[in-house]
């Protein structure tokens, strides 16, 4: 007999009438130890030691550096005494104050400007998405990377570029274009809406593209064969894109209302106060009012929830399940010559306004030798940049921060994405909620939370003095990037078959080798993209830098703002231009390095279909 089930030898039933006795140690004397042992086993449930230690540590870091600051940024408004900022343990005074005076004006401004920007983003982004995905628009393959360029540039850069163009002593006037009406248009609510609207175009584009991808040709075919003309077909089809449209509006609104870059530059210089800048001012003015800042933060978070609520309400009870295995690839509509010219003209106008004008403004301002009335081109600002350590140092510093933060965040983001993808435990649902909440929190509110949480006397009494140190700034960068990074990676990680790692282990690879050779190469492309996304986001990050930088070590964005606010426009713009060049070189190096150095098999994954 080759096989015997102990209780079922020769094909008889197992476990019926002949239950096995337990081991001898389970006698009365060993009961206490047995009980403890079985409970420990139940708790650990066969998990490896690395997981038993690693998971709690990961959670501890998340709680300390994401949950605590996020909660602090909101709780301080109602309980200043908890943070040593007053005597009241519970008060609604500060929330009440947020609805009056300049704060109320700032909140109102932020609300209507964000709504208008989201609408503008949709008006521009929808046609671009449709032209790119559904027509034979020439050069359409350049649209996705250029959208990334728009989204990766910090919002204060185009704002400064526009300012340099239209200000009273700006490039426009030096070129002899004496258009005060245009200055007033841009240096005010109109310019703010325009810049925030342009910034939300990539998000709209991505949301609508995703919606169009699921909208197969069969819906259009069905409409056409049942007698609908082109216009009637479009009227029939577009409601199917309602989730994408709402999503685009919600993201556009959330991005605009949480923006700090435009608020601190063009809006502030136009005497048009937005809520994020008001929050910053509450902390930075003397005397600072942390509870008032916290109240502003709570209102901003509540404002972010408005479009999400509207979206949920609009889509409630309706089904938009249009994507299935039978979905047919849509046919691209051939554009007529006139259509092509109009489409290309429109696209060119978008890129001109979004990238060209501010780019020209920044570059030309950096090349102007003085700030008098002449128009002489000079490299004096760039020379100052390279010969004055306090001008170039911030760029080097931010470069180092970007590399460190991106590298740490990609590792942490991958771990978080892996835990999210497991989807079998309550802890992964909790993690999902925590990361989603952190993504929704405006950066300026997040940074304020860091001040509230790590300025507490308890840290000093423990001998941990993190406040106003580079360490805390870097930790805040990592903590603010990790939620987005995890969400970017979770799509790719969810598609990973756990069997890839198991297969490597069963065929002789150790734990680390199994990850390194069997799993990570499969997601090498998304990991690289996540690294770049984080690097670009951190390299010229403004709100967290502005609130948390160590006074003797300002990062690039802070140094640039300092130069501009001290009327060193030329050097400030030279710093900006050089910083963007560094970011572009870094992107080119990483992407080029990946293309040249990564094994062919790594590069194939995710690139299928491109021939």
């Amino acid at each position: 007999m080759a096989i015997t089930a102990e209780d079922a030898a020769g094909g008889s039933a197992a476990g019926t009438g002949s239950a096995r006795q337990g081991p001898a140690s389970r006698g009365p004397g060993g009961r206490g130890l047995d009980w403890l042992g079985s409970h420990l086993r139940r708790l650990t449930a066969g998990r490896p030691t690395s997981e038993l230690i690693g998971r709690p540590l990961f959670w501890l870091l998340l709680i300390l550096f994401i949950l605590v600051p996020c909660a602090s940024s909101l709780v301080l408004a109602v309980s200043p005494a908890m943070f040593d900022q007053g005597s009241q343990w519970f008060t609604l005074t500060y929330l009440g104050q947020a609805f009056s005076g300049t704060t109320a004006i700032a909140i109102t401004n932020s609300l209507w400007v964000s709504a208008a920007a989201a609408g503008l983003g949709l008006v521009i982004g929808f046609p671009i998405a449709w032209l790119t995905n559904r027509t034979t628009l020439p050069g359409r393959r350049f649209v996705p990377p250029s959208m990334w360029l728009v989204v990766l540039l910090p919002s204060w850069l185009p704002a400064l570029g526009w300012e340099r163009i239209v200000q009273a002593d700006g490039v426009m006037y030096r070129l002899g274009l004496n258009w005060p009406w245009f200055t007033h248009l841009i240096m005010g609510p109109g310019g703010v809406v325009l810049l925030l609207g342009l910034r939300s175009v990539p998000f709209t584009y991505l949301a609508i593209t995703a919606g169009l991808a699921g909208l197969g040709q069969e819906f259009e075919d069905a409409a056409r064969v049942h007698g609908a003309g082109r216009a009637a077909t479009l009227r029939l089809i577009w409601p199917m894109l309602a989730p994408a449209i709402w999503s685009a509006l919600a993201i556009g609104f959330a991005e605009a209302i949480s923006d700090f870059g435009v608020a601190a530059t063009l809006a502030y210089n136009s005497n048009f106060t937005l809520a994020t800048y008001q929050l910053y001012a509450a902390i930075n003015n003397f005397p600072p009012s942390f509870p008032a800042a916290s109240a502003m933060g709570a209102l901003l978070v509540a404002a972010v929830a408005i479009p999400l609520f509207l979206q949920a309400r609009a889509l409630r009870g309706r089904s938009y399940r249009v994507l299935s295995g039978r979905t047919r690839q849509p046919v691209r509509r051939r554009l007529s010559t006139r259509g092509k010219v109009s489409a290309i003209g429109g696209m060119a106008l978008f890129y001109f306004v979004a990238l060209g004008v501010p780019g020209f403004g920044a570059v030309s301002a950096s090349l102007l030798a003085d700030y008098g009335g002449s128009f002489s081109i000079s490299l004096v600002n760039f020379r100052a940049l390279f010969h004055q350590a306090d001008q170039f140092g911030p760029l080097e510093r931010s470069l180092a921060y970007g590399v460190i933060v991106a590298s740490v965040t990609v590792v942490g983001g991958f771990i978080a994405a892996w835990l999210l993808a497991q989807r079998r435990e309550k802890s992964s649902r909790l993690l999902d909620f925590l990361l989603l909440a952190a993504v929704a929190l405006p950066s300026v509110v997040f940074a304020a939370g860091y001040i509230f949480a790590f300025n507490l006397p308890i840290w000093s009494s423990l001998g941990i003095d993190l406040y106003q140190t580079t360490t805390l700034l870097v930790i805040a960068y990592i903590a603010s990037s990790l939620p987005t990074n995890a969400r970017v990676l979770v799509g790719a990680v969810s598609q990973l078959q756990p069997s890839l790692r198991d297969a490597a282990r069963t065929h002789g690879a150790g734990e680390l080798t199994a990850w390194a050779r069997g799993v990570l190469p499969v997601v090498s492309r998304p990991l690289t993209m996540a690294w770049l996304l984080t690097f670009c986001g951190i390299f010229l990050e403004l709100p967290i830098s502005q609130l948390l930088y160590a006074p003797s070590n300002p990062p690039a964005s802070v140094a640039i703002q300092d130069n501009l606010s001290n009327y060193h426009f030329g050097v400030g713009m030279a710093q900006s231009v050089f910083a963007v060049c560094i970011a572009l070189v870094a992107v080119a190096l990483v992407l080029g390095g990946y293309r040249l150095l990564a094994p062919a098999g790594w590069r194939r994954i995710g690139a299928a279909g491109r021939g």
Partner: protein
Amino acid sequence: MAESIAIRNAGKEYPGGSQALREVSLDVEPGTFLVLLGPSGSGKTTLLRCLAGIERVSEGQISIGGKVVASGAVHVPPERRNLSMVFQDYALWPHLRVRENVAFALRRQRISKSAATGKTLDMLKRVGLGALAERYPNELSGGEQQRVALARALVADTGLILCDEPLSNLDADLRERMRVEISSLVREAKATTVYITHDQAEAFALADQVGVLERGRLVQAGTPEEIYAKPATPFVARFTGLAGELEVRVLGRADGAVEVAPGTSARPLTVPAPMRIDAQSALMLVRPTAVSLCDAGNGDHHLAGTVADVAFRGRGYDHAIDVAGHGRLTGVFARTRADRGTMVGLRLDPAGCHIFPA
């Protein structure tokens, strides 16, 4: 060299308290082709993953080749168990070429690169993929990917090969061809094989030995013939193929057999009864091979019914027969066709009828 397997009281509890395995005990001799058979959730995949070392047992002990690889404090990691595995989704690394996927399994042998290349290409030729060594997995058909996974499992000559439902993603025709290939290649390798499936036909076709799992317990183990001829429980009988179930009256008891009648007017028959039946009625589970059609007017039949459906099967016809008071018997084979609606008689072969308490 083929490895033996000894499993003692193995249990597995997942976080959250779900008990995937309960007190499973099993001995497998070297060179045996063991098929673990059971429905979804029966614990067969968990047992296989515990053998592989991908999962840890919560209780009990597993030994491979006489060496304890899993018990309370011991957990030998998968890479040190010297086994190989064919995964349900094949788990081919998409960034590696076919030859690199296969050669991966030779890393632990620490042989020279040229020797590894030689062994890899030899194995690929054996599975009929010599010409596709430079391709990537996504450039292969489902059957070809299956063969790569098989080649990877065979190339290192491990003493134990584990197969996790490797045919479940293939269409019916390819499935049958691959079954034959797996059977012959694995037996050529002379390794011990543990193969899991929920398909009883596949299990019986492949196995030297079959272990049937139900809700985490091993409920029966034996040769395919033993399992089919003497199912230990109604679950095993049902899972290994029935024409139907009949509630029968017990007319008499003899040593190891009972006389039963399927209906009030039906002719009685005497069937083996391995367990004691004390009640007046019992449950009789009938294999398809135990039912044959006859003329309804002939008094020689045990039951009569109406043909509900008939399906041509090449060598003859499968019938579904509605029997008044007993429901439907399916898979009743006859060389000649009985049309739908026809009254037919049914003769039962006691060897294919299994009695259990009602």
